[in-house]
């Protein structure tokens, strides 16, 4: 592998697809030919040379004094960081349309969304050859854009990759992962970014990652997964399952996972609850937007900054989350959701007793058009994540792989593995890659 993209071409691609909100400028840098691959970081991962704004206006001007651990590790492995990819503000969205900056456009149809919240990351993976994109998933933010942009997206087990340097959404849910056109890149770089990091105590209880090819034989398909799936996606998905059975000898069994339907409410309660505390620190002091009229009372000062700089969706989630942890609601919502999470984890375990992996479509539809998204109500948007949320809620590793196309638009399927079994996902992904005809978007010359 070698760095094959020049700055002019990168700028041209970015002008068209709005992948990055900040880009490398190699002309002003000292020549460094030692890089062997390019990578990008989602805007919520801290790096020294770029602002880290997590898609939010409230972080305008924040240049972190440190590198996020996964970024540092990719640099040390010889990677060249191209820039910071666009995303939904703090990860709050399914289409990367809730951004304080640019909204990335789908590589297969610029009238459609990339998915989110790692939308820019998925577009970069689809459009730049030999590129690996660092994405972050809280409730499906790697799977969704991987599915819409027709690339592989691996979300590791919670705690596998250090979150040091990640701007928090929901700390008990956030995972840093990888998106790429090629399973080979994911296989190569996942062990690089994995491992214990004393700077993130939740990464320190993991077993050592070991990737070894193994034969995947039995998949489980929860029958609850196919309700509310668009007919084109369902037929594309079923065709892929048949292909797996015929060409790879993988059996798919239908199972029932009744607790999955509780995943979405539990997820939104936990994620917004944690988010509402994480976002408390943004008050126009110490970092981010410059201090304004400091002669005001502190309450007026920070309320003013927050009203002005947070987007609609961020405000909605702060309100939701604050509500869920208030006295009287805390037991009913927050503590109950923690219990639901345990229940679903248990149900997953019993399915893994009999099966290597669980398979479902990734998203219920192909990448929607921007005008369709504009008409969606928040609850409809939240519902689009009903298949990506369960593994995220339970911290299970999962992989979205392209499984077919509806017209030009990619369809994704999602594999879920037991905790720490990223190796099973990579084995599956590589086998599938061998028999699947991956389409790459046409990039202008």
């Amino acid at each position, binding site marked *: 592998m070698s760095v094959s993209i020049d700055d002019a071409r990168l700028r041209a691609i970015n002008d068209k697809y709005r992948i990055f909100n900040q880009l490398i400028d190699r002309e002003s840098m000292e020549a460094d030919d030692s890089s062997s691959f390019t990578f990008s970081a989602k805007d919520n*991962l*801290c790096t020294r040379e770029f602002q*880290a704004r*997590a898609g939010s206006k409230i*972080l305008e001007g*924040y240049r*972190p*004094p*440190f590198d*996020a651990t996964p970024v540092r590790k990719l640099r040390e492995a010889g990677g060249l960081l191209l820039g910071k990819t666009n995303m939904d503000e703090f990860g709050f969205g399914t289409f990367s349309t809730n951004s304080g900056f640019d909204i990335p456009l789908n590589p297969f149809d610029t009238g459609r969304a990339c998915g989110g919240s790692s939308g820019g990351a998925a577009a970069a993976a689809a459009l730049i050859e030999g590129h690996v994109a660092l994405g972050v998933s809280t409730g499906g933010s790697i799977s969704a854009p991987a599915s819409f942009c027709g690339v592989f997206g691996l979300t590791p087990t919670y705690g596998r990759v250090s*979150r*040091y*340097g*990640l*701007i*928090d959404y*929901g*700390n*008990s849910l956030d995972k840093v992962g990888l998106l790429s056109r090629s399973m080979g890149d994911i296989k190569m770089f996942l062990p690089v970014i994995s491992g214990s990091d*004393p*700077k*993130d*105590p*939740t990464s320190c*209880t993991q077993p050592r990652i070991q990737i070894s090819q193994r034969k995947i034989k039995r998949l489980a398909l929860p029958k609850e997964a196919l309700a509310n799936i668009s007919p084109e996606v369902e037929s594309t998905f079923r065709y892929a399952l048949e292909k797996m059975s015929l060409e790879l000898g993988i059996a798919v069994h239908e199972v029932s996972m009744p607790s999955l339907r509780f995943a979405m409410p539990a997820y939104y309660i936990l994620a917004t*609850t*944690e988010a*509402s*505390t994480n976002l*408390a*620190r943004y*008050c126009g*002091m*110490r*970092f*981010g937007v410059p201090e304004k009229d400091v002669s005001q009372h*502190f*309450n007026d000062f*920070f309320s003013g900054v927050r009203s002005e700089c947070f987007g609609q969706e961020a405000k909605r989630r702060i309100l939701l989350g*604050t509500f869920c*942890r*208030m*006295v009287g609601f*805390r037991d009913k919502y*927050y503590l109950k959701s*923690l219990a639901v999470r345990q229940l679903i984890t248990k149900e997953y375990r019993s399915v893994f007793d009999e099966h290597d992996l669980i398979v479902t479509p990734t998203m219920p539809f192909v990448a929607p058009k921007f005008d369709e998204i504009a008409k969606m109500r928040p609850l409809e948007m939240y519902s689009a994540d009903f298949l990506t949320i369960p593994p995220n809620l339970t911290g299970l590793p999962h992989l979205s792989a392209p499984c077919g196309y509806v017209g030009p638009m990619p369809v994704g399927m999602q594999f879920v593995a037991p905790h720490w079994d990223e190796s099973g996902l990579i084995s599956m992904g590589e086998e599938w890659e061998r028999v699947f005809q991956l389409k790459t978007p046409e990039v202008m010359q």
Partner: protein
Amino acid sequence: MKIGLEMHFQLPTKSKLFCSCSTEGAEPNTHICPTCLGFPGSRPALNRKALEYGLMITKFLNCEINERIWFSRKTYFYPDLPKNFQITMYESPLGEHGYYDLNGKRIGIWRVHIEEDPGRIKRVGKSGDEVSLIDYNRSGVPLVEIVSAPDMSSPAEARDFVAELLVELRHLVGLSASDEQVARCDANISVGEERVEVKNILGLKNLERALNYEVSRQTKMLAAGKEIIRETRAFDEERKVTMPARKKEMEEEYGYIGEPDLGEYNVGEFTNGLVLPETPIKRAARLQRQYGINAVTAKQIVITSWGMADLFEHLCEKIEPDKVVPKLLGPITSNWTAIEQRLDDNMRAQICRVIENDINGTITDSEARRAIATIAEGGNHVAEERTVVADELVISINEFLDAHPETIKDAKSNPKAANSVIGHVMKATKGKFQSKEIVEAVKKELEKRP
């Protein structure tokens, strides 16, 4: 009257609770990093030593230790709180349901937990033109919070309680001496039915003052038939009064959630394995019991110095405790600074011999006192044995008698005549001998004379 306390003490770790910044005092905003400033992307990592100290204190206070503990976020907006939430403990404190025996009275301990300190706000500038400056050096400094039951019944008792706890904790985990001034307390006090909370009282003196003020305020109100309202008040150190404080959120409105970045800690086994050293107040109680000395003396010995208590116990192996005490509180205490610097086996043996000689009358009290002073300065002088010193006394008496034969004659008919001999010898021997000893020796020598 009921008084309950919520006490905060800084734990003596080198670095902060969740980052490696120093806890030492310094120029404002120099001991800071992304973590204790709450920068996006930063993360807490627990200082194990702080947890260990917290657990030692919890165990010391006889609490039931929680096997599994975790931290919580207490969210409120204040400029000195970088994340606008404080990492503390809520559902799972280190321990609960403990007690402390204060001068024979059991004070309940409701809970013990550790948490991070916010920064400090300083108001500067002319009145009307003030600005707030924030120093984040303190942000993230580890604190232990101890909540007592309302088991104290006077301001003086509350002060004694905190003072004793400080003595004990200083020895247990090494709180620095200056913490006496910075012990921060919130006090709940009720004279009648309803309680009032006085927040943020700094130091022991202020604690007693604030409580005394509240006692008289509440007593006067009750006497005037007025109702005491449940409220939070603040102590004004300058004017020495308590005033109604700003309406703070009720405890439940902080919207506590678990701190997901720190996970859970199973501390049961670790805590069982912790061996607590004997603390000063407990040692004093043991000394009183074991050696039959009075409580005040026992406390005085231990609180003067841990080494003095060691010396006391060493001396008591050979000498009766009630003989050791006067020497310890007398010459040993007055020379303690010098003794402490040089105390070793040899010195201990010398001191022991001096006291033994004094007891068996070989040397006088004042000789013993001088001997101890000499030993303290590193000299190897031990008062010499009986024959030599006795000779000195006899020689002195006889010199005088030889020079004043009329006294011998007088003494035959008038016993008071001996007084002039005694007076002279006392002066001449400069207090080396006990008066009783001199009287007896003079009597004996006079009898020898025809």
